[in-house]
C-alpha cells in the first residue's frame, strides 16, 4: 500500500519543519541560502530560506525572523526542540549563496551570496550544530528538496541537473 506523501513548501524568507515520510522543498535559491537541520533518528527536519546575513541590516519595525541568518537558525532550532528533537542530534546541510550576476560595481549588496554563506556558517558554529555537507557558491540557481527519511538533500540546477548531498 502506498503511503500518502506530501511536499512541504518553504517560500522566500520562510521556514518550516517536516516529519518523514513527507519531504520539504524550497525553490529558486539564488543568492539566498537554504539550510536544513535534521535529526536522523526521529526523522524530523526543518528548512529555512534565508535572504540576508544579519538582522542588524533590518530597517523594519517587525522583523521576519526567517529572513536573516542570525535569527532564522535559532528560530529553526527552537521549532525542532519544541517537537522533541535533541539539540545534540541535530545536523545541518546548506545550499545556495550563488552569485547570479557579474557586476563591476563594488556594491556590497551584489556580493550577498557569499556573505549569506559566511553568516550561516558562523551562526552554525555559534550554536554548535555540525555542518555535514554543503553545495554553495557558483552562479546558478538551485531548487532543493530534503527527505528526512534518507537524510539526503536533492539539489536541482538549470544547467547541471540533479545532485544529492
Amino acid at each position, binding site marked *: 500500500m502506498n503511503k500518502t506523501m506530501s511536499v512541504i513548501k518553504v*517560500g*522566500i*524568507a*520562510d521556514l518550516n519543519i517536516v516529519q518523514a515520510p513527507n519531504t520539504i522543498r524550497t*525553490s*529558486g*535559491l*539564488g*543568492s*539566498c541560502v537554504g539550510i536544513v537541520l535534521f535529526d536522523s533518528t526521529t526523522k524530523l527536519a526543518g528548512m529555512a530560506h534565508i*535572504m*540576508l546575513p544579519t538582522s542588524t*541590516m*533590518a*530597517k*523594519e*519595525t*517587525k522583523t*521576519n525572523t526567517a*529572513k536573516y541568518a542570525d535569527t532564522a537558525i535559532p528560530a529553526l532550532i527552537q521549532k525542532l526542540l519544541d517537537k522533541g528533537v535533541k539539540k545534540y542530534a541535530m545536523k545541518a546541510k546548506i545550499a545556495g549563496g*550563488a552569485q*547570479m*550576476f*557579474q*557586476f*563591476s*560595481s563594488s*556594491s556590497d*549588496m*551584489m556580493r*550577498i551570496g557569499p556573505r549569506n554563506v559566511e553568516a550561516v556558517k558562523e551562526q552554525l558554529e555559534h550554536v554548535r550544530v555540525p555542518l555535514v555537507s554543503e553545495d554553495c557558491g557558483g552562479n*546558478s*540557481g*538551485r*531548487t532543493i528538496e530534503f527527505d528526512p527519511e534518507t537524510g539526503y538533500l536533492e539539489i536541482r540546477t*538549470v*544547467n547541471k541537473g540533479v545532485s544529492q548531498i
Partner: protein
Amino acid sequence: MTFIDRFSTYHLDILREIGNIGAGHAATSLSKLLNQKIDMTVPAVRLVSFDEMMDIAGGPDRVIVSVFLRIEGDAPGSMFFIVPPEQADRLVRQLTGDTSFTFEYSSENDMAFSAILELGNILSGSYLSSLSDFTQLSILPSVPSVSVDMVGAVLSYGLLELSQQSDHAIVVDTSLNEGEASGQEVNGHFFLLPDPDSFETIFNALGVTEHE
C-alpha cells in the same frame, strides 16, 4: 507605519503612469529594432509578497532569460526585463540571423548573450530615460547583466534592498507583445522595483506628498 501602509491607491496610480510612459517608449524602441508592430498592455502595479512576485513571473522554478540592471542616481532601484527562453531564442534569431540558436543548448554562445543584453539595454534605457524626462530626476542605469536561470534565483536580487524594510514589494509590471499577425508571440515583462527610499523621491519630484 509599515512600508506598505505608506501607499494609497493614488500613489499606485502614479506608479502605473510611470510604467505606462516607460513601457511606451520601450515598445517603440523594440518596434524599431525588429521592424515590427509591438503591442503593450496597460501596466499593472502590484503590491505583492515575495512569493507572489515569483508567481507573476511564472513560479520560482521556471527558467527565464533576464536582463538585470541597477538604477543609480536620485532614485535607486532595480529593473528586470524578462522573457521566456523560447521567446528570447526568437528575439536573438531575429537580431543575429542565426536561425538555429537556442538558449537551452548553447549557454556558451557569447554572440547571443551579447545580443539579448543589448536588447535589454536598449529597452531599459528608453524606459528609464523617459522616466527621467518625466520626473526631472537623474536616473542612471548601470551596465546590465544577463542570466538564464530560475525565476526565484534571479528576481530575489531585485528584492535585496527592499527586503531590509519589508516583506512586500511594489512591482510596476508592463508587458510587451509582438503583433499577433506573425502568429508568434513575444511576451516580455519589465519589472521596475524602486528601492524603499526612492518612492518618496519620485513622488516629490512629481509634486505629490507621500502622505496623502
